[in-house]
């Protein structure tokens, strides 16, 4: 489209600036962490002043916020939701359950390491993270977007086979809930 390297740089800056200030978060709560989202979004902590808002459907959303533990049953739906989202898209892992299993580390039906299944841009640790921590995480994500380093979706497309192999190892080879997408 624009072949000149410097003009591309300027376009990127404008694009990233615009993306950074309108983060639509998909309203999909997986674990107990979803209870921290209403205070973050409403008047006391008011995340909307940073441009963070809720979105109703995956196709309108930019950020997939994984709020807490993921059971093997939920992770199938989450992967499907992620693949339905349109670019630009980012994933935030929220709470220690998404990082290393947290208090469900020996559970028989929750996954432990989220970044084996989906490309995670930012992790917010804590059990639970307070709304301040959530906003801090979002600001880190905005910084990353502005610097052009939030490239989880690109990474997912490039390493799709690795992610698919991991998903199928845990979710079973014949799982009907993951579609074979062909971008």
């Amino acid at each position, binding site marked *: 489209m624009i072949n000149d390297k410097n003009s591309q740089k300027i376009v990127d800056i404008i694009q990233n600036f615009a993306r950074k200030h309108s983060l639509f978060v998909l309203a999909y709560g997986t674990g107990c962490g979803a209870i921290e989202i209403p205070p973050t979004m409403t008047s006391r902590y008011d995340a909307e002043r940073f441009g963070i808002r809720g979105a109703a459907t995956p196709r309108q959303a930019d950020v997939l916020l994984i709020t807490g533990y993921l059971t093997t049953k939920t992770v199938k739906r989450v992967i499907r939701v992620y693949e339905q989202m349109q670019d630009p898209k980012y994933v935030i892992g929220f709470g220690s359950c998404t990082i290393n299993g947290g208090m469900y580390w020996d559970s028989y039906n929750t996954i432990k390491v989220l970044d*084996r299944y989906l490309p995670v841009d930012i992790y917010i640790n804590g059990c639970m993270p307070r709304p301040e921590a959530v906003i801090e995480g979002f600001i880190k994500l905005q910084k990353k977007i502005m610097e052009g380093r939030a490239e989880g979706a690109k990474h997912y497309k490039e390493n799709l086979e690795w992610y698919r192999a991991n998903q199928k190892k845990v979710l079973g080879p014949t*799982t009907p809930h993951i579609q074979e997408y062909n971008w």
Partner: protein
Amino acid sequence: MEEKKAQILEKLQKVFPEISETKNDFPYNRVDLRIEKNKIPAILFYLKDEMGYKHLVHITCVDWLEEGKFEVIFIVWSPVDKIKVFVKTFLDRNNPVMDNVDMIWRQANTYERELREMFGIQFEGLVAPKEFILEDWDDMPPMRRDFDTEAYARKRFFARPGREDARDVRQTIAERTGEEIPDFAKKYSR
């Protein structure tokens, strides 16, 4: 209340002489009784139709691993008497089969599906989809006490390195303060 509870047990014992064990010394409105498993539909029908215990509160199960038994517990409640009756029965752990009771309360179907999936108890004549909560489960029923959930999680899921040396927090506190961990607490630590 105490008299009423005693009356209920007396009445039930008159109709069902098979009742093997009763318990009535709870401080609140609870009565326990134990009966053999093939009398369960009969006693539940009697409680519902004749005595007004028309609300099924819960069906649950206790795994007595050491005795080799499952204990299935039916809790019913009467809105008139305001008393809960716990009907208990023992099943053989190697062959846990009992009668289906969802013709008495339709909602029993859901509880029975859960017990079938989580403990492997077979209810004869239960008509329900095969899977309830778990999807593509291929191991032993997970709520049985001999199911090793940690070994299963290690085998099945990816783990982030760094958790291998995870130790009991009580151990750390005991070392810091110079206390000794009592034996009963050691039994449950990992």
